[in-house]
């Protein structure tokens, strides 16, 4: 309920209204999900790691804002002589949060440079913490089969939410925590600034991912996805490369969690549900076509527009349905996922062959190469995905096949 009040406060004070407000909102969510889905595409589409734990990385981003950035701003404000209410104990941390944030906001209003440095600091911390989480995830990933890894990651997303709910000093437990407004220096509508920053970060991360995919490292990633035993046999460190990919992508994913915290000026664990931050990005990835960024973008645009339109027309739909609209979204998500998997296994834009000047794959490979991710793990034989190497390492019986 506090969430709704916070949202109401947020929307009431802005100048941009009506349709433009909706556009800003869609742009913001598009930017956020582009970051998450592109990192997912990097991990699953190109390196073949089924990361079902995006929610863990996103929640880390949110907790960074509430637990580290807010504390830092309070400390610095206290040192600068601003009189803020006590915030060190758990109780004060939660219940003085609205008042403190108000006081700090008026202090922040004259310091654009400080605010921007705080934003950059948060992003830097996110990259580091996300990388740490990625490293932690990669520890079981080195040992486990792909399906086991999915189980562990899904439970980890739930576990992180339980910690967020019960440990007050992270994000204020179930009540949530207000975040100092780092765009107080801008007199107009700060959500637009936030959306621009999010889209820019999405754009930058797109260029980073694109450059990495077109580099020799990207070709190495795809080679690992296709057949890791071959890659290992020519002297590449497969597990090390996997670990690096997970760490890098986790860091990027964590940024989006921080951005949404700043967007709402409010962090609560209920905002970081695994359904929202894992299943929807996966739908975007599979719908658009895993393995190429254009598909991911298209999937993102379609799904975000769909969700936002549903939410905006909530009051109209609520009259038609007798149940909360969230459950309709669930049904839609399930049906869409299954339909895409069955009817468009390659996504809307299928993965294309890598273009390297002077090389013609179709002539190199005698038979026609069909990149079908659905049957991929079968055609890739015993060394499919993460499972293969552990099967090989564990001395388990190899599957019959090519």
């Amino acid at each position, binding site marked *: 309920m506090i969430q709704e009040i916070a949202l109401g406060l947020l929307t009431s004070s802005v100048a941009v209204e009506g349709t433009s407000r909706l556009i800003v909102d869609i742009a913001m969510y598009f930017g956020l999900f582009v970051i998450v889905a592109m990192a997912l595409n990097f991990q699953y589409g190109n390196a073949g790691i089924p990361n079902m734990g995006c929610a863990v990385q996103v929640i880390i981003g949110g907790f960074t804002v509430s637990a580290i950035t807010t504390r830092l701003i309070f400390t610095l404000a206290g040192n600068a002589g601003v009189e803020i209410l006590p915030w060190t104990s758990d109780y004060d941390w939660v219940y003085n949060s609205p008042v403190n944030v108000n006081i700090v906001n008026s202090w922040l209003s004259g310091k654009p440079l400080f605010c921007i440095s705080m934003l950059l600091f948060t992003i830097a911390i996110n990259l580091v913490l996300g990388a740490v989480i990625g490293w932690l995830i990669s520890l079981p990933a080195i040992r486990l089969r792909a399906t086991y890894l999915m189980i562990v990651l899904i439970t980890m997303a739930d576990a992180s939410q339980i910690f967020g709910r019960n440990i007050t000093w992270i994000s204020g437990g179930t009540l949530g925590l207000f975040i100092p407004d780092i765009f107080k220096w801008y007199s*107009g509508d700060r959500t*637009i600034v936030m959306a*621009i920053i999010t*889209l820019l970060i999405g*754009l930058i991360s797109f260029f980073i991912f694109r450059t990495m995919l077109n580099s020799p490292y990207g070709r190495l990633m795809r080679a690992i996805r296709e057949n890791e035993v071959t890659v290992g046999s020519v002297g590449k460190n497969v597990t090390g490369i996997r670990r690096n990919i997970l760490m890098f992508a986790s860091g990027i994913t964590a940024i989006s969690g921080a951005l949404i915290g700043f967007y709402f000026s409010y962090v609560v664990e209920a905002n970081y549900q695994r359904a929202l931050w894992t299943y929807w990005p996966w739908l975007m990835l599979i719908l658009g076509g895993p393995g190429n960024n254009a598909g991911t973008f*298209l999937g993102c645009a379609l799904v975000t527009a769909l969700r936002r339109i549903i939410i905006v027309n909530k009051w109209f739909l609520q009259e038609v349905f007798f149940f909360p609209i969230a459950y309709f979204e669930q049904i839609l998500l399930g049906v869409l996922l299954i339909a895409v998997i069955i009817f468009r296994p390659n996504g809307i834009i299928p993965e294309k062959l890598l273009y390297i000047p002077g090389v*013609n794959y179709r*002539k190199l490979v005698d038979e026609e190469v069909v990149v079908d991710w659905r049957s991929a793990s079968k055609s890739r034989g015993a060394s499919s995905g993460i499972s293969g190497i552990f099967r090989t390492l564990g001395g388990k019986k190899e599957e019959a096949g090519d």
Partner: protein
Amino acid sequence: MDMDTILFWVMIAIWVIMPAFIVYEEIRERKALAESEAATEELQVANE
């Protein structure tokens, strides 16, 4: 014209540039792929 409106259109511009660039690159790469294929085929025909 106030700052909000300007920033709003900047946002729209970024939002449009991003997919436009991706589509442009996608088309270019697919074209290059098809061309290199055709070139190799021609080369083979000439060799034969």
